[in-house]
């Protein structure tokens, strides 16, 4: 499925995912690292303050032992003064050795602390306990519980609660700062990728457009500038390929022309007997006329009459020679408005002798409303000639050839040539358009007729198909676009 997505989208999604996940991973790790440092710092600073404060608390508990100080409200005063000057401290509690609270800074919300030291199973010998928790009365609080002891000799414990809401606010601010930074950086990176991808795909699209515009018939210079990047290399190579293709096209056309000519000459050879007969008949007539004139030179009426007949015979010969010359002319693919029916008639006239000789009936169903098409008349005649010659060869003697033309739709006209000859064996149907494929005896065919015809029709943007009606009839359909090849 992912292959179905455009290259740009794929790059964006893939790179975008990787970058966003990477940024997210960096953001999370940095966030947790900083959070950890902030909390650690808070715990350490709270512990430091508690330890510092515990010195005076411990003194206040020890001194009365040696009678140096009377602890009459000293602790309470000291704690209250300390709290006054340190607004960030929420409460201070002093426990005795049995875990009972002996001094408290406030009665507000400390009920839960009352026996906590005992119920938690604290002994009087423990390491400082640091914790952060949320209390209903105070919100987030960092609690430090410090044993008041000297080398195991205990006087109880000191618990101090530090306001930790500012720490939480710092963490939240840090979160939003890093989050925004991550988003901004990710967007900048994605935009950069988008720009670069766009640049690449735009260049590729331009190149594709140039490829689509590419026409060997109409060699226009490429409109893209070849840069120094990979796209530039692609463009340069495309230009070179275009030049090679043009060269190949020239060579191909030259070869095609030679093949057409060879095939045409072969067709002329096959027409030779018919042409000779066509010429021979008027020649005999002329010869007879000349003989009669020579015998009665004084008979001016007869002479005039025979000269007229001889002239007609010469005209007929001239017309046949003209047609033969027209057919044998080198193909040049000169597109012009062509009347297909006219071309078919011309070809039929060249084949007249052979058709008659072989006793072949020609049925023409030429559409009267056939519009002229854009084509090369000579080439079209050659195609019709090739197909008719094939039909002639398949019938040999006595048969019927039906030629029809008509409109297939508004854009396409068709020519169909149907014969009731020997037909095409099923196994050869796939091969008949291959060059040099022939089933005729040696010397009778080059095997290029259908191949050349296919090439001509395709060059005109048309198609040739064959329909073998169960061996009884064979029909070749030629479809040609009226407007010619675009």
């Amino acid at each position, binding site marked *: *499925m992912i292959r*179905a*997505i*455009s290259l740009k*989208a794929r790059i964006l*999604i893939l790179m*975008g*995912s990787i970058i*966003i996940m990477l940024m*997210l991973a960096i*953001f*999370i790790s940095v*966030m*947790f690292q900083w*959070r950890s440092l902030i*909390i650690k710092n808070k*715990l350490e600073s709270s512990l430091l303050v508690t330890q510092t404060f515990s*010195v005076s608390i*411990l*003194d206040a508990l*020890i*001194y009365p*032992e*040696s*009678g*140096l100080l009377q602890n009459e409200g000293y602790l309470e005063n000291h704690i209250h003064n300390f709290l006054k000057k340190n607004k960030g401290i929420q409460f201070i509690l002093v426990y005795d050795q049995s875990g009972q609270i002996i001094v408290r800074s406030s009665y507000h919300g400390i009920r839960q602390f009352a026996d906590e030291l005992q119920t*938690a*199973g*604290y*002994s*009087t*010998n*423990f*390491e400082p*306990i*640091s*914790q*952060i*928790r*949320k209390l209903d009365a105070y919100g*987030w609080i960092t609690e430090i*519980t410090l*044993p008041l*002891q*000297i*080398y*195991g*000799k*205990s006087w109880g414990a000191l618990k101090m609660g530090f306001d*930790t809401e500012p*720490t*939480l606010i710092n*963490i*939240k601010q840090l*979160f939003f700062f890093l*989050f925004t930074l991550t988003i901004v950086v990710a967007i900048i990176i994605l935009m950069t990728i988008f720009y670069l991808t766009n640049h690449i795909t735009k260049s590729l699209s331009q190149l594709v457009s140039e490829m689509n515009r590419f026409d060997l018939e109409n060699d226009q210079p490429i409109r893209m500038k070849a840069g120094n990047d990979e796209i530039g290399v692609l463009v340069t190579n495309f230009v070179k390929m275009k030049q090679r293709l043009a060269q190949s096209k020239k060579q191909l056309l030259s070869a095609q022309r030679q093949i057409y000519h060879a095939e045409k000459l072969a067709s002329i050879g096959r027409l030779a007997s018919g042409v000779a007969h066509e010429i021979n008949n008027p020649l005999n007539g002329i010869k007879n006329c000349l003989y009669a004139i020579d015998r009665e030179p004084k008979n001016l009426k007869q002479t005039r009459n025979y000269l007229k007949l001889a002239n007609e015979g010469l005209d007929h010969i001239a017309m046949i020679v003209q047609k033969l010359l027209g057919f044998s002319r080198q193909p040049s693919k000169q597109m012009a408005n062509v009347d297909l029916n006219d071309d078919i008639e011309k070809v039929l006239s060249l084949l007249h002798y052979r058709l008659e000789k072989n006793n072949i009936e020609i049925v023409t169903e030429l559409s009267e409303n056939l519009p002229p098409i854009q084509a090369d008349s000579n080439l079209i005649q050659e195609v019709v000639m090739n197909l008719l010659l094939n039909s002639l060869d398949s019938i040999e003697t006595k048969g019927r050839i039906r030629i029809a033309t008509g409109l297939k739709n508004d854009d396409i006209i068709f020519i169909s040539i149907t014969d009731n000859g020997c037909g095409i064996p099923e196994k050869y149907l796939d091969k008949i358009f291959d060059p040099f494929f022939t089933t005729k005896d040696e010397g009778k065919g080059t095997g290029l007729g259908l191949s050349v015809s296919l090439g001509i029709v395709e060059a005109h943007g048309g198609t040739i198909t064959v329909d073998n009606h169960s061996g009884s009839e064979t029909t070749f359909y030629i479809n040609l676009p009226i407007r010619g090849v675009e």
Partner: protein
Amino acid sequence: MLINRKNSIFGKERTRMKYFQYYIAFALLLIFLLITVFVYRSITDITVEPDNLRSADGRIYDLQDKETVYVGVISRFSPNLIYEGYQPIMNYLSQVTPYNFVLKLSNSYEKTILQLTEGDVQAAFLGTYIYLKARKDNPIRCILKPLNNNFEPYFRSVIVTRSDSPFHTISDLKEKKLALPSPLSFSGNWLPRYEFKKYGITINDLDSVHYFDHHHTVIYQVLRGNFDVGVVKDRVAYEFINKGIRFLASSEPIPGSPIVVKSDLDPAIVEAMQNALLQIDVRDPVYKEMLMNWDPEFAYGFTVARDEDYDHITSIIESLEDEL
């Protein structure tokens, strides 16, 4: 027709591809948002659970079901300093003897003697001077005395002055202000009543003399500049070397401050204390580490003390007594 159908299929495919891209982008965005929300919830819960509770060094110092021996300490230092330096000794004794040893502080030298004679404490860390004074009239005896850094059972009183003071000999101290520790300590008496005599100086030649409760206070007063010189025991003076204090002179070696018991104290307790403290081998890393926490006066161990060890300085004490 076929071409049109193909175009139609291709068009639908393009539309599906377009939506697929949006789905992927939306899914990625959703994942990003979910992770962000999860991270936000995680980081704003700043709960830190307390560590597992454990004893500071794995030992329980609570009083066990053993006979308790109370030990007094003369008020030579402030109470917290006494606990800092002497509580580890009590812990050690409680650990290695069949008795619990508990410190009992007092606010004066005399009160410790009173505690000892009245049975409030069974043993006490006394000063040499107060011991010699008290043994005359009270049934007490010394059992142990600390060794100094030369592993000799002596200490010295040291005259100290600020590093930047112009005084270099005792002769320079005329008309100067003198700070002294307790008048019941050797250091509180040696210079004004014994050493000055050698230089022909009397207390009257001084600007002023003041006695303070603790040795450390003497040093602090000198450092503050309230007094020109002071006298303390060497253990305290060494703490302040390179901290603004220099030595001017010191006394001859004086037998170390003894651990004293009441004469009729159960010999088993005495023996237990002596065995425990005499077995300390300062070269043994285990003991060495333990001694680092003890008062520096006891950092080199103990030796047995006998009353006669102090006899040779009785003349000094008596001369001081004469002055009194």
